[in-house]
């Protein structure tokens, strides 16, 4: 226990890295998911099949495989490009490789979430808004998006809960996140069970906090009592 207290600041730094990684990946995934959904809904043949390829392939491949592919494959690309440009050696950032891989993966899941939510908003509402003379952007902002948030929230919460657990495997490429640092520290003081237990409960805490926040958000965006709405 003494060791765990001594190493607490180090583990806290790791936990911070984990959270930042997860949030950055979520931001990327949200952007990709939004673009993907827009492409699937509004795009032409080519764009639609491109997005279809993206979501199908990415959802078929495990997260760690993609992380290793992006990290080692990206490093090799950089080496080749560096040699051609005459630059000595550049190292790919482990943090950003992790963000890119995880964001890329969950962007595919969010594409489906957003697309499904968009399709749930009845088309008549858009038409009604347009018939009132609203411009397409106004319709999106004032009519479609608020409802889209409501329908997408449960799926979005699910993706986040899976995403944050997914960050654990980024430690495999040597990132000094919560899992990576606890692994090193736990082994060096010969108390791996204690240190991994700490990681276990930290993750449990993360998922619990996220659940609480998303529950509150879902209440915030839920339909009010039917009586009020009608």
């Amino acid at each position: 226990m003494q060791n765990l207290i001594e190493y607490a600041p180090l583990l806290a730094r790791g936990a911070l890295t984990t959270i930042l990684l997860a949030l950055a990946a979520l931001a990327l995934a949200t952007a990709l998911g939004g673009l993907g959904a827009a492409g699937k809904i509004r795009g032409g043949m080519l764009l639609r099949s491109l997005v279809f390829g993206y979501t199908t392939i990415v959802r078929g491949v495990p997260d760690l495989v993609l992380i290793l592919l992006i990290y080692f494959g990206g490093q090799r690309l950089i080496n080749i490009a560096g040699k051609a440009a005459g630059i000595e050696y550049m190292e790919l950032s482990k943090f950003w490789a992790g963000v890119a891989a995880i964001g890329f993966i969950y962007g595919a899941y969010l594409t489906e979430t957003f697309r499904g939510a968009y399709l749930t908003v009845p088309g008549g509402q858009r038409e009604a808004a347009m018939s009132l003379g609203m411009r397409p952007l106004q319709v999106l902002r004032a009519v479609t998006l608020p409802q889209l948030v409501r329908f997408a929230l449960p799926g979005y919460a699910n993706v986040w809960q899976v995403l944050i657990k997914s960050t654990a495997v980024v430690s495999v490429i040597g990132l000094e996140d919560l899992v990576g640092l606890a692994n090193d520290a736990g082994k060096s003081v010969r108390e791996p069970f204690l240190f991994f237990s700490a990681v276990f409960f930290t993750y449990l805490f993360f998922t619990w906090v996220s659940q609480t926040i998303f529950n509150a958000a879902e209440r915030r965006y839920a339909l009010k009592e039917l009586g009020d709405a009608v």
Partner: protein
Amino acid sequence: MRFDLIAENWALFAGGVWMTLQLTALSVLIGFFIALPFGLIRAKSNGIASKLINAYVYAFRGTPLLVQLYLIYYGLSQFEAVRGSFAWVILRDAWWCALIAFSLNSGAYATEIIRGAVQSVPKGELEAAKSLGMSPFQVNRLVLIPIALRRSLPQYGNEVVFMLHGSVVASIITIQDILGVGRTLNARYYLAYEGFLTAAVLYMSLAFVTVYTFRQLETRYLGYLRVSR
């Protein structure tokens, strides 16, 4: 790309596929036998057993599989009592630790699936069984469980793919599953694309086969729901 190297190492990859299939199938199977009683208890009672099971489910669904694996594989060796016991033969072995971690993980997810499926069984079907004079045990064995299992098929298919994808963490503790072979190739020849891309294609194919199989099972065992709609 050097396809000759992939071809040269085909036996390694075949072994990796076998290892991945073995780990995934066994953990899903053991997980199922954990989840069936647990899911039934969760669906039917609110007592202390149900609460304990809920704690297990919450803990295993709320933490990364990798951390669970590390806790068992590296963590347990911290204790003298474990290292001295007869169980050490199993707990020092990477394969057994992976199987234990994966089974417990799959069991937790499947408990939720079965709980949901049991609760989705229409009351009328159970009442009909009772009205025929079946004992509670007969109702469970002949009506409730078969119907619940059929209804859990779509989600169970997702769980199997989830486990297939999750099983990649076995490669981190030196097991030569599909990704383990990919990593070996990367380490031996420094060929990132060949090893990892082959692994990606293999995982994707297995995932598609799994999805297809469950689609077939759904048409076979859940088709009656589609007709009645």
